């Protein structure tokens, strides 16, 4: 059998297993949180009968295993339950938020990934010379600063001082694509600065590693330009490590942007999650956890698949 389908199926199966394990952990994790949901909803003065009724209506009197599978099977069908705090359907309230989060992440990714790889290539081209050092200095500085500080500094400069972009990233369905882009410009900029260094450094390191190979010398002795040589001969052999770091950072753009969303009052998943954790709204926390886990595992799976496909030995077996 060709090794690629086999490896792909293996990875997919592994991803599903991982997702299943994550869902168990999310469920168990929210179960051991202190507090009683019925008590929280009905308040301190509720009678024991009312509490029991409430639990029964929420299904909380069932054994944990039964509740887990009920929860999982409805989640698989797209039913994430209703929020305890406001009684709304979780799936429909998350949909818009998730869309916003993905939009911001996509904008940040479209800027940061090509930029990081290009800067990485440039750093290799001018290795140990001033462009390399400058790139490293800037990206390392930006990664070392706390996100919120970076957010406020950028807000102060671009919004307050120069008035280029709005400081509050309000977006809604009525806005055109360009208006939306304008709205998320500042948070996207901050996110880019946060993830740039990691990807750039990895690109640089992975390519420098390949640059030691004999086939780079071969290419150099063909009279190729330095940059052509790096992009055409070194880069294809450094894809696997680069893709892995890119995917980890993309996942971070989706699941780790709480602080930035708060700073720019952006209506995304992170804020939604934090709000409902404060209210002990267990079904919402579970739903968000499940979505984040899916995205995280999905992106890493994708990184694995790209790494496998980028290996000519696997693509073209003997």
């Amino acid at each position: 059998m060709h090794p690629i389908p086999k490896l792909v199926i293996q990875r997919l199966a592994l991803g599903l297993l991982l997702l299943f394990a994550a869902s168990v952990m999310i469920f168990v994790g929210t179960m051991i949180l202190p507090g009683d949901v019925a008590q929280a909803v009905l308040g301190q003065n509720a009678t024991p009968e009312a509490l029991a009724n409430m639990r029964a209506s929420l299904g909380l009197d069932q054994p944990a295993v039964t509740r887990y599978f009920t929860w999982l099977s409805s989640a698989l069908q797209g039913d994430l339950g209703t929020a305890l705090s406001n009684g709304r359907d979780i799936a429909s309230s998350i949909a818009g938020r998730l869309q916003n989060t993905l939009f911001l992440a996509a904008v940040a990714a479209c800027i940061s990934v090509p930029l990081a790889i290009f800067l990485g290539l440039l750093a290799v081209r001018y290795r140990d010379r001033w462009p390399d050092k400058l790139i490293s200095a800037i990206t390392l500085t930006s990664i070392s600063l706390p996100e919120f500080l970076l957010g406020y500094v950028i807000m102060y400069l671009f919004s307050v001082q120069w008035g280029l972009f709005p400081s509050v990233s309000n977006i809604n369905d009525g806005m055109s694509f360009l208006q939306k882009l304008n709205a998320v410009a500042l948070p996207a900029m901050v996110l880019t600065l946060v993830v740039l260094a990691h990807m750039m450094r990895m690109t640089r390191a992975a390519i420098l590693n390949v640059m030691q190979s004999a086939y780079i010398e071969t290419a150099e002795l063909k009279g190729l330009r330095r940059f052509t040589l790096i992009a055409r001969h070194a880069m294809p052999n450094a894809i696997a490590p680069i893709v892995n770091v890119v995917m980890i950072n993309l996942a971070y753009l989706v699941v780790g942007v709480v602080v930035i969303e708060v700073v720019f009052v952006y209506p995304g998943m992170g804020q939604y999650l934090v709000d409902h954790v404060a209210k002990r709204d267990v079904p919402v926390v579970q739903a968000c956890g499940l979505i984040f886990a899916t995205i995280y595992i999905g992106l890493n799976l994708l990184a694995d698949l790209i790494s496998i496909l980028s290996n000519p030995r696997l693509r073209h077996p003997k």
Partner: protein
Amino acid sequence: MADTLLEIKNLRIEATVYAPGEKPRDVVIVDDVSLTLERGKVMGLIGESGAGKSTIGLSALSYGRGGIRLSGGNILLNGREIRAASAATLRGLRGKEVTYVAQSAAAAFNPAKRLMEQVTEATLHHGLMSKDEAEKRAVELFRTLSLPDPENFGKRYPHQVSGGQLQRAMTAMALCPKPDLVIFDEPTTALDVTTQIDVLAAIKTAIAETGVAALYITHDLAVVAQVSDEIMVLRHGKMVEHGTVQQIIEAPREEYTQALISVRSIDHQQKQPTPEPLLRVEGVSARYGAMAKDVLSDVSVELHPGQTLALVGESGSGKSTMARVITGLLPPRKGTITFDGRPLPPALKQRSRDELRELQMIYQMADVAMNPRQTVATIIGRPLEFYFGLRGRKRDERVQELLDAIELGKGFADRYPAELSGGQKQRVCIARALAAKPKLIICDEVTSALDPLVADGILKLLLDLQSREGVAYLFITHDIATVRAIADSIAVMYRGQVQRYGPKDQVLAPPFDAYTDLLLSSVPEMELGWLEKVLAHRRMTSAGN
């Protein structure tokens, strides 16, 4: 002198060495070397490692590896000075006027790209031909170099073809842009002897058909004699002797050249088998992990005390697997091993300390077989402590005895491996094996990484130690000359099986089986026209069949 292609005058090449704990200092790698190469001629550059051959070869591309600087003299290519030319000028001539064939084609091809793309890259980059023309030329070259299925060969990736085919593909890559000069840097050294002869023949044909000039770099005088018009002998970055092939081979003037030619002149008396063998391998089959096929199948050999059994064969024939089975690193699937009259437990863990002691190993790569942070005394002293519990003064005295036995003087005990030459490192490894007072030492390609003269010294030392200590050797090698020099009996291995086995005089005497004949006739001989003779002989025998 209208025909002069390359003229190197008083070339001086330096490099900066950054030794730990010392100030960086400049060392001279090539000093005052001059050569003139005419269009269409082939010059062989020959010498030991460190002689500066590759460095001189690359200087024709005005290229220095690592921190190497072409610091003085002139390099005139097509009448133009290129030693200190600008980067843009050099890019213009590299891959167009001069091309390069590296020693390890397996490493010199980009694993992520198809062969055709790489073979035609320089041609297209310099705009010498259209894509169609370049690919047509590549296919023609594949055909000239007798590569299989030349039309489709270029569609493959480097890992899909064999080492010998890659080396020929590299030659095609170098010839594709129709350069004036090709630098062949040890193009057949990494190949098996049976493959080497095909590649050598292919390179010779290609040079003759394209009329290109070449610098052919190698440490093997017999090889260079087959392809060159002239030979330059180098040592320590200086020229020793320069002349036509005939003059160098038949009437060498310098002592060093004479030593190179008469290398492997060890005279070894074959010993008769004793009644009881020291090592008896019976019906051994072995494979790695979940592999579907055996790497060794049904191998039986015997080795007598104080004698040498040579295991000969090309890479992949199962020689080293044999060593792993005997040492217990890879327990066999079938078969038994008897050592000194008693059965040897198959796995390393089940063996007693004495069984471990009596069986020692020496490896091909001496520098990675030693801990770089231990001194020679620690390295040799370790088995003395481990097996005999020697400590303090007694241990030091024994270390010195062993150092004397391997002909290294007093000062060596406190040195680190990095401060030793290749041959000295291998000597230390021999001393470490001897320290255990073994009955059998397995020598796995112990001279393959060494220069001929150094290797000769190691072989003489091993023979000398054998006659004094009575130790037996299982000698794994792909080099027939080595086998001739030291073996008492020989097992020729091919694809995991023993093809031919017996006392040396019988194994090396006709009638041969087909494989042994191929193996023996492929070993280059120091003789003009040897290559043509062998090829003609093969054509005749294959026509006869």
